[in-house]
């Protein structure tokens, strides 16, 4: 036992310092879990592909006039003599039954789809996230009350709920549709948020903060909230695509966006009767819808793979 040396651990560390320093550089680059996820995302081809598509769609939504010289709201945009004409020079996608240029309408329809998707997602995340956090943090009767309310809302089928609200409120613009979907969609975010908060609430680091004398405010925003964000980000990205396709479905059924507003779902609905004779009127808006939804769902998928710690 003569060779026993009893050292302060600082000296042990010093011995290892060299080795650790080499790791330091690599470590500094991927410091946080979020940044880890981002670093991982950038390497995935699916992410790059879906991000490219989404960037194009955003450009279309923000500045449709850059992509088409015509405006669907100008006089003389629709010429009945062109009704159901197929694709031709200057009119890449052809004309619909009213003789309107389908390409221009599809381009302008992008904005409504994206706006409905984004607005609904933001609204559901805010409502569901906030209420979910309150229910999880406070617990007790607040939790019970909010959970019961959530159950009521999630029991309403979207079609019946949509019909109900539309019959009262007959405007049929993007805001009404977003409102309907947000009202019916927030319970999903609520449940995820509440579950995450409750599972984080009993973690040791929350107990450690309480032992230090931290107040509820600090515990909620400094300790619990940051740890619930990853799953909420994942569900939010995936929902974007889901809400866009839901809007199209509602509009297709006549309880979503209404004319003169432009919507892919509405265009599909208008074109369906003449599908056999002139399929182009249905295929182009339907293709745009599929591509958009696919891009967002693909994005949600890769984001989940990158951020969900359970997948690691």
């Amino acid at each position, binding site marked *: 036992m003569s*060779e*026993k040396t*009893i*050292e302060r651990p600082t*000296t*042990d560390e010093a*011995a*290892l310092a060299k080795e650790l320093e080499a*790791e330091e550089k690599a470590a500094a680059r991927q410091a946080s879990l979020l940044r880890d996820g981002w670093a*991982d995302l950038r390497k995935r081809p699916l992410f790059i592909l879906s991000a490219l598509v989404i960037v194009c769609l955003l450009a279309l939504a923000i500045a449709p006039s850059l992509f088409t010289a015509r405006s669907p709201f100008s006089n003389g945009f629709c010429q009945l003599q062109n009704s159901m004409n197929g694709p031709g020079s200057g009119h890449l996608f052809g004309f619909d039954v009213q003789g309107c240029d389908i390409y221009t309408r599809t381009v302008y329809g992008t904005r409504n789809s994206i706006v409905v998707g984004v607005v609904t997602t933001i609204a559901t995340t805010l409502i569901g996230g906030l209420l979910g956090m309150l229910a999880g943090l406070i617990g007790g009767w607040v939790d019970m009350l909010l959970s019961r309310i959530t159950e009521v809302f999630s029991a309403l089928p979207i079609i019946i709920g949509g019909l109900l609200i539309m019959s009262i409120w007959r405007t049929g613009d993007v805001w009404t549709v977003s409102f309907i979907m947000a009202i019916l969609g927030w319970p999903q975010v609520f449940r995820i948020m509440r579950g995450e908060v409750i599972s984080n609430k009993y973690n040791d680091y929350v107990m450690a903060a309480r032992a230090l004398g931290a107040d509820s405010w600090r515990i909620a925003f400094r300790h619990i909230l940051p740890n619930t964000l990853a799953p909420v980000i994942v569900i939010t990205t995936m929902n974007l695509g889901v809400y866009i396709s839901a809007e199209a479905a509602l509009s297709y059924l006549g309880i979503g966006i209404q004319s003169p507003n432009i919507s892919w779902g509405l265009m599909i609905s208008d074109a369906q009767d003449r599908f056999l004779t002139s399929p182009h009127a249905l295929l182009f808006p339907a293709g745009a819808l599929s591509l958009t939804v696919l891009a967002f769902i693909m994005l949600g998928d890769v984001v989940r793979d990158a951020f969900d710690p359970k997948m690691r």
Partner: protein
Amino acid sequence: MTIIDPTDAVPAPRSGDGDKTGPLLEVRDLHVEFKTREGVVRAVNGVNYSVDSGETLAVLGESGSGKSVTAQAIMGILDMPPASIPKGEIRFYGQDMLKMSGEERRKLRGARIAMIFQDALSSLNPVLSVGFQLGEMFRVHQGLSRKEAKAKAIELMDRVKIPAAAARVNDYPHQFSGGMRQRIMIAMALALEPDLIIADEPTTALDVTVQAQVMDLLAELQREYRMGLILITHDLGVVADVADKIAVMYAGRIVETAPVHELYKRPAHPYTRGLLDSIPRLDLKGQDLYAIKGLPPNLLKVPSGCAFNPRCERAQDICRTDLPPLVPVTERDGTELPGRASACHFWKETIHG
């Protein structure tokens, strides 16, 4: 209460196995790798060990030493991919299991080689009664009827000393305490009277007083059935209590092998020595404990040469460049010490110095 005086000698290896020569299980130069996001993790880097019938081999190591991965490779329950076995042999009665078909291995699993896990609660199916789960072994491997299987299950529960076995056979796992669940796991492992049992930290999750009960039961059953037992653990106390021989693992390699008494008396590897020295001792109360300095190795970046060199007090330049092979350990005058080997350039200094 029972007072047990474990003076029984270790039984001689089972001799009636006729033509089968050599050890019951022999692992030769086994390598296991895992492909991860960060790179290839070499979890096991050339492990050799063997067990005979009626013998207890303790594999001692810390987390990341590769002790559990080796056991999973023997059982054939590694997830491949991400794991792969690029090299090595696992001979069971002389036959290399890695060359067998999936079906052949499945027949060995449970019937000839069984495993006991650390966490009995998650290893038992929560929605099936313990009687059903115990009986399943007989139904699958021996084709017994439900009724016969249940009778066998009760018999097994009696064997592992679960009180009121007949009354509890239809209970579900969560209705049993931790110690009782571990007994059920043991019963399940014993069901088909295997030749070899691998126990991966079987008592780590249990309380001290229950741990003693379970270890005693395991040792008693092993004696009775003359099974080989591979005990995987990090607990130097448990090892001293039950093992016949010990293999110490560090960073995916075996760094020392020795019969149990020899190892505790005269360790021949600085890592083993460090582990033994860091046990709190009465005469050193009030002083610092001996501590191996530094951190366990990162398997993505195992140090060159001897993996233990950054933490070793004896480390010289050669330790940083040359990987020490596992060589036989002898007395000062060259007399052989059977079963002893050390993977240290300075084993002579460590054991004799």
